[in-house]
């Protein structure tokens, strides 16, 4: 059976993961346009190595997104230095991270604000664990860290979120 464009393995993978990958990339690069470029490059790299795009290889895709985002960030910093601009401010763009339902808008704003205050290493673990739905073992593999380290970062991130969210009475989260 010939595969049609809509059921190619990468398209199935894309439709399942694109919003999660973009959210993950946005933890590193400053704009949603940059994040989309990162995801595009990472998908092509991943597909070149893993043409079947099997779910067990998805952690490698997150890893490709991370390395591409960091490369792009290094390039941005180099460019900023060359042009004597102020340092590139990661997460400066105001496009929201989430597509909240009607009753989640306020929660989404507070969660996003809380995430932006986290250190990058906690933010990336949180994004992989909560929205990427990876296990701690898979996150450890993606980041090249130990399972204990990523579990600790996740715990610290949740604790920080809990503290921030405690300061208001959202519709869905009462921390």
């Amino acid at each position: 059976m010939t595969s049609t464009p809509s059921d190619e393995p990468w398209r199935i993978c894309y439709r399942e993961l694109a919003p999660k990958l973009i959210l993950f990339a946005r933890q590193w690069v400053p704009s949603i346009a940059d994040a989309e470029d990162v995801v595009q490059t990472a998908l092509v790299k991943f597909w070149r190595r893993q043409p079947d795009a099997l779910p067990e290889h998805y952690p490698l895709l997150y890893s490709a997104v991370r390395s591409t985002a960091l490369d792009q960030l290094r390039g941005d910093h180099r460019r900023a230095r060359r042009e004597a601009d102020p340092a590139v401010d990661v997460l400066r763009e105001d496009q929201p991270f989430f597509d909240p339902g009607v009753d989640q808008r306020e929660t989404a704003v507070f969660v996003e604000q809380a995430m932006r205050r986290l250190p990058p290493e906690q933010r990336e673990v949180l994004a992989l664990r909560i929205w990427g739905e990876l296990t701690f073992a898979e996150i450890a593999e993606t980041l090249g860290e130990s399972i204990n380290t990523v579990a600790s970062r996740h715990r610290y991130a949740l604790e920080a979120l809990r503290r921030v969210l405690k300061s208001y009475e959202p519709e869905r989260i009462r921390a």
Partner: protein
Amino acid sequence: MNLNESELEEQLRLLRPRAANPELEERVAAAMSREIVPAAAILRRSRPEAAPFVRWLQGIGWAVAGAAAAVAAIVILNPRADRPAGIAAVTVEVFEPTESTEELVTAEDEGLVLASDQELVRQVRYHSLERHVWVNPQTGARMEFEIPREDLRFMPVAMQ
């Protein structure tokens, strides 16, 4: 009301990441087709069978070209190495490293092993690909090369 860790996680999961721009899927498709078309074209290309002597000459040609490329790479990448005075130093100075990336290709969990201090650790083998780009800023000439790399990492295991 206080949520425990897993309840807080569940509540956070209810927030859905912002949907991807609809145009992105087609941009990815276009990028992928740019990747695959030249390779497929090369695979489909049929060549007339060359005479044995011509094949031997082609083999010599490729060997000479490979050796020349290797010598050029060594000279360019190792400018401080001793070399005959006849090789112009100007070649060394025109290329500058502009980009180095490392892409993780596979990670294999090889299970638990005992480290030298009798501590239990998890052995993970990573295969990655280093990609380096050198550019001549005057001419725009670009040299790219890839180096496969294998790393064995030992991660501490928490014993509960």
